[in-house]
């Protein structure tokens, strides 16, 4: 009589698919003419491929974003918890219910160089069915979902973004068998994960506001501070970013006041001089106004732009 114990959990990945399990019993005894040793038949069983996968969001919390931000990066880890080399097809879902907004999907990216960081131009774009990644048993691969945040979102709005990975061989209820489709010539059998895994990460809009403070200092041609023709006015515009998160792509623009003429080459950002041309540096003067691209400014920081005009 056999006692059926409760079944035990499967080992993480377990014996590699295609392995043969061979059993032989041996016997020894004392016969009439001395000790005798012998063996039983050999029973051989092949280990099938078990299809299992898990997906985890590995951002460690909400990923900060801001209205209109292009290039949100969210990180997911896909782990092959089966026992054979398996390719996984991925889908991203940005239109989850129950959250505050839906970002726009840009692309999914493979962490080609396995450094855990999205490297634009280095990490390859993922295209389903074209470069599905083969992952070895118990191994993981990192993928990134790149999105754009709509401009109309409000402070502290959150968006759920999920990644689903399914075994290319097939999915289904646990126990579903794909005859002959397993690694090593056996069958492929769907495991308890149903050969499909999903994990969600969240984007959160961080509140940031910017306050502009403009001041002017006049120096007249006579060493004083009177506003007379020929006086130079130095305008200073301080952009103070407050709140939480980052003010992205902050651009400070100011028209040249009527009755004054812009002093060529007088733009500074954080006291560093900038050229007037529209070029690689952050400042330019187009004949009617000065403009400085101050970039992404974290809350708590200030960017100060100065320029000079001469009273006509």
């Amino acid at each position: 009589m056999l006692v059926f114990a409760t079944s035990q959990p499967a080992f993480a990945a377990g014996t590699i698919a295609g392995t043969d399990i061979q059993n032989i019993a041996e016997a020894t005894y004392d016969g009439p003419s001395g000790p005798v040793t012998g063996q039983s038949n050999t029973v051989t069983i092949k280990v099938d491929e078990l299809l299992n996968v898990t997906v985890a969001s590995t951002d460690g919390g909400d990923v900060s974003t801001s209205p209109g931000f292009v290039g949100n990066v969210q990180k997911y880890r896909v782990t092959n918890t089966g026992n054979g080399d398996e390719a996984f097809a991925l889908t991203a879902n940005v239109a989850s219910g129950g959250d505050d907004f839906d970002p726009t999907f840009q692309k999914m990216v493979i962490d080609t160089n396995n450094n855990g960081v999205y490297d634009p131009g280095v990490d390859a774009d993922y295209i389903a069915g074209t470069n599905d990644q083969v992952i070895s048993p118990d191994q993981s691969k990192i993928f990134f979902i790149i999105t754009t945040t709509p401009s109309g979102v409000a402070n502290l709005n959150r968006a759920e973004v999920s990644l689903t990975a399914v075994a290319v061989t097939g999915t289904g209820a646990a126990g579903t068998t794909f005859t002959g489709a397993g690694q090593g010539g056996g069958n492929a059998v769907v495991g308890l994960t149903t050969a499909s895994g999903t994990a969600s990460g969240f984007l959160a809009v961080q509140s940031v506001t910017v306050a502009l403070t403009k001041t002017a200092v006049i120096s007249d041609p006579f060493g004083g501070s009177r506003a007379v023709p020929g006086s130079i006015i130095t305008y200073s515009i301080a952009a103070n970013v407050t709140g939480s998160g980052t003010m992205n792509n902050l651009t400070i623009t100011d028209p040249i006041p009527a009755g004054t003429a812009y002093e060529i080459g007088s733009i500074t950002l954080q006291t560093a001089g900038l050229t007037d041309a529209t070029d690689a540096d952050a400042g330019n003067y187009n004949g009617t106004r000065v403009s400085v691209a101050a970039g992404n400014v974290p809350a708590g920081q200030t960017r100060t732009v100065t320029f000079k005009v001469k009273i006509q």
Partner: protein
Amino acid sequence: MRPVRSALMLAVTAALSSTASIAATPLQLKSDVFVERQVVRSDGSNAVVLEKPNMVTPGDNLVFVVRYKNIGGSTANNFVVTNPLPPAVAFNGTSDDSEVVSIDGGKSWGNLDVLRITKADGKIRAAVRTDVTHIKWNLNQPLNAGAEGKLIFRGIVK
């Protein structure tokens, strides 16, 4: 994935169907392996059945059955059956604890609860089923002509 399909399957089938008797000796020893499968009966209830598998997956529960029979005309004394555990199988006990086991490849033997393992850090821990490498039964009585029996142990596919 669908890589190479080996010609091994033919050999497997042949091995499964053979019953080996120990060459030129009057003892028959036969090994069988079954796997427990959950099946749903027609009334909807679940049942566990034993199947003779060609294929298993990690986590499957296996039942190993070793049948022995003295088909000779004389008594066999000091009858001992040893079953080395396949590397991909974790020992999961016997129905009657009549066995002794080895956790060192067959060098030393004992009941599992008295065996100890020295860990990498020098500490000693009690051996557990997954440490078992060999299972052995010492039949303490002579096996008379025509006598037979079977030995059963359980394993889990790692």
